[in-house]
């Protein structure tokens, strides 16, 4: 039995490029999270109109225009932040990044305010009916992802303000930005399912 050395093979491929690990990794994460959200959305749609009691969506849901505007524009601001970092302008990056962070936080505040009204004024809780169950779980699950995103954004902001983030970190920032874009895309789906189709 011979013991050949695999590296003794003649060179063949001159240009060997493979996708970047962080991009593939975050795409995998996005796919799996998309599957997760799909199940919650399916449960929401399945139970539409099947609540035996409690307030109906049409009666108490108001279209969340402000929070949607905040979240979707945060996608634009994060793209801008990425772009300026790629060109090396760290202080401008800080500005746009902070704006993104604040818009995300405002989305969460507006959601909390909506929930406060639904719980205390409209008497809708997770245990009230099928509508309550599916509403709070779907919207809440999304809000949890926004929260995680905001925390990560805040972490990067703190690091950046202290001078640790440079132009060379563009790809890493891009990875987080893709997660953030995903969270926004999910909001579009949740918005459609809950506030458009569901009413």
């Amino acid at each position, binding site marked *: 039995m011979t013991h050949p050395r695999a590296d003794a093979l003649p060179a*063949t491929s001159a240009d060997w490029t*493979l996708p970047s*690990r962080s991009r*593939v990794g975050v795409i995998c994460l996005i796919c799996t999270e998309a599957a*997760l959200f799909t*199940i919650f959305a399916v449960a929401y749609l399945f139970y539409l109109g099947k609540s035996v009691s409690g307030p109906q969506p049409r009666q108490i849901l108001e279209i969340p225009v402000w929070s949607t505007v905040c979240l979707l524009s945060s996608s634009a601001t994060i793209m801008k932040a990425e772009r300026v970092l790629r060109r090396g302008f760290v202080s401008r990056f800080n500005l746009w990044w902070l704006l993104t962070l604040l818009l995300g936080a405002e989305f969460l505040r507006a959601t909390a305010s909506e929930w406060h009204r639904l719980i205390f004024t409209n008497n809708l809780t*997770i245990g009230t009916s099928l509508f309550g169950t599916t509403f709070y*779980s779907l919207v809440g699950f999304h809000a949890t992802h926004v929260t995680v995103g905001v925390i990560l954004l805040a972490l990067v902001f703190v690091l950046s303000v202290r001078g640790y983030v440079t132009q060379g970190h563009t790809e890493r920032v891009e990875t987080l930005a893709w997660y953030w874009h995903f969270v926004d895309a999910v909001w579009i789906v949740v918005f459609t399912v809950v506030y458009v189709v569901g009413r």
Partner: protein
Amino acid sequence: MGVVDHSMPQSTPTEIRLPLLTQLHEWVVTVDHKCLGLMYICSGLVFFAVAGIEASIMRWQLAFPNNDAVSPEVFNRLFTMHGTTMVFLVGMPIILGLANYLIPLMIGARDLAFPRLNAFGFWLFFFSGLLLYFSYLGGEGLAGHGTAPDVGWFAYAPLTGRAFSRGSSTDYWTLSLLVGGIGSIATSVNIVTTVLCLRCKGMTLGRMPLFIWLLLVVAVMLLLAMPALTAAQIMLLLDRYLGAHFFDTQAGGSAVLWQHFFWIFGHPEVYVLMLPGFAAASEIIPVFSRKPIFGYPAMVGATVSIGFIAMGVWAHHMFTVGMTAMGNTFFAASTMLVAVPTGIKIFNWLGTMYGGKIRFATPMLFCTAFLFQFLVAGLTGVMLAVAPFDWQLSDSYFVVAHFHYVLIGGLLFTIFAAIYYWFPKATGRMLSETLGRWHFWLLVLGFNLTFGPQHISGILGMPRRIYTYDAGRGWELWNLLSSIGVVFQAAAIFFFVWNVVQSLRRGDSAGDDPWDAWTLEWSTTSPPPPYNFETLPEVRSRRPLWDLKHPEDPDWRHE
């Protein structure tokens, strides 16, 4: 853009003798795919012994009608824990462990794409196993009945609701699998990224070993299917603790919705379990037949087809639920369809062996038995796919026989083949062929004796998950035979353990390439150094070592 990663992982060099505590510490903090792979496999084998004992107790109880060896409560916990353990704490870790160990070696990389994520995934699995088994000790039970979950491994609602499952036993099931599931997803992300981003120079997707293709499809299936279970479990927790009504039938909730969500996960899961078995067989059969795999492109195509179609067959577990005729027909059709690429694989393995010079070393013995047994499993699967036939066979011992033929006759046999095949690479020592034969033949006898007769008791109307049965139903003989088979299976495992222990102590030295094989892992030392390869290889075909050994007729002339 991406370039092959040459960074060195942190691992202890094996030549220096360190104090025991330091060695243990190294194992705990390691991010080396080889160490983690071995940890996964060893943990899986330990849980295998535990679940095997659980099964043995069940078979003892069922050996005779109206037996009272264990109470119904204990029996119901046993079958729940047996199933849950075997799927999540034996099957998953062993296949993820094999993936972990072999993928970088086979693609010419130094480690997985995300070594720390890898360790994270392992420890999540490990702790999920401890959590599940802690249920025997901790928490609260109703009237002191004990606390391990007793709702079956697929935990149908509303039996799992607060009203019917009091105490915390169901929560152990839910939380343990939730945590473990996140670990599986983490490892899947790792596998996909590794395969797409870390292949050595020249290894296009079309030149990857089939093992890699199969595990790539497995990882993608896990990414898409695991979330269904995770979501359902979150919903169950919300029901049980926050008063939600997802599966609360009295508030209009649907028991069938749980079933849909569970099986949207559950069916791809059983393919996730089986495909790595195919992966091992696809590497071992060619080497021991001395021929390349017959029809590599078709094998890849069949694998990808299985991956796709398997995502759309789940409701064949629900033929008795009362779906419409259209629904039943659709899922019957899709299920029968997925049998086609699966069958094609059997033919391709057959075609590989045909015209070869088959050497029946232990790995090949296990693969050969796998082919026969999996053929039975696949055919009983076709029977179950025919929905009207399933209306009789579902939830009977026929189904139990079917899936044990898949998971033991198929998966376990190929896992043993894989262990006998790659053990020399991982340890530098050969396992004994003599002990291997004892292991093999005892397992063939015991396995078929236990699960063959169960086809018959199912046909005679014996449902599954019953702790006892009356005499005179025509089930006694088959149950007795089934229980006798356990003795032979236990003996087989004993020989396996003996083989491993004696080999580690004084097995023959393996060398780099004891089987005269053709994929990259055989080009490095046994065991491989922490950095896997001195220099990262470059390949021109699917069998780089064949090219080196046969420069007069290299593969790249024929591909």
